[in-house]
């Protein structure tokens, strides 16, 4: 009986040890895909309106900006491999290009470019915390400002 219990404990320990090993090394073995979500938000000082799809992000934006209205114009989800370009067409002949390049620890390195009339007008490189987002803004658009909320999640 004691021997049987000892065997069970050994088996569980080996199993959990192996699981931990897999979990720790999972980034190395993963397919290296990043689920990138780009939300294009139109922020203005018009009549108060909060798009229900923005509930997760809005409190932080409201703490910084004096805008009263936040509308979600576009929500584009892309599964990108490292060094694969993700392109989002923006209003006003603009284009947003996001490229996850690699991992820096637990942060995803992104190159984010904004083009207007096919010319780069803004380029930045950021280290985005996994499952977090950054907000970049804002070009003027229709009596308001465009905000780009970019989130990344390692798959």
């Amino acid at each position, binding site marked *: 009986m004691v021997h049987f219990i*000892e065997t069970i404990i050994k088996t569980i320990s080996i199993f959990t040890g192996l699981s931990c090993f897999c979990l*720790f090394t999972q980034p190395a073995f993963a397919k290296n895909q990043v689920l990138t979500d780009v939300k294009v938000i139109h922020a203005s000082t018009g009549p108060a309106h909060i798009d229900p799809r923005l509930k997760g992000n809005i*409190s932080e*934006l409201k*703490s910084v900006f004096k805008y009263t209205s936040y509308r979600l114009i576009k929500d584009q989800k892309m599964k990108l491999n490292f060094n694969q370009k993700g392109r989002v067409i923006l209003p006003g002949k603009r284009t947003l290009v996001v490229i996850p390049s690699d991992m820096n620890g637990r942060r995803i390195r992104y190159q984010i470019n904004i083009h207007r009339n096919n010319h780069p007008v803004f380029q930045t490189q950021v280290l*985005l915390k996994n499952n977090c*987002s*950054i907000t970049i*803004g804002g070009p*003027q658009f229709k009596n308001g400002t465009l905000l780009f909320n970019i989130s990344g999640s390692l798959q």
Partner: protein
Amino acid sequence: MKKQCTKYTLEEISRFIDNELPQDQHAALAKHHVHCPYCNQIVEQYQSITDVYKEHLNRIPLEIDTLKIKEKFGQTLKNSKKKSKGSMFGFFGKYIYLKLASITAIVMIGLYTFQGGFFDPSGPSAIVKSVDTDFASVMIIETQKEKHTIIWFSET
């Protein structure tokens, strides 16, 4: 005592009795001691010492009290069962490192499952490494509560 023989040493005779001499030497001594009174006496003396001693030991009436040994053994078994039970199910004792490793592994799996990752980096949601723009002003803001990063630029 007979006249001492100088052909073989006493140690060689001792080894001869135990068949530990090289084969040719053994044969030579075997042949020699039959005709040498001194060596013969030594061989007989050494052999009788062994024989008498062996006989003496064989005659000693020694026997273990099986009841006593069973009692002693039963006590030892009880003590070792207690020890192994205690060490099996107690925290300290047998397999302590295995137990620690299992607990650590379970805790880590739990953390990973419920918190979505091991050792999430602290700090802002995004660290800005570089900015390249023609715009006049650029601001990098970090919200107080969630440390959410905002890059704000003005086109004018």
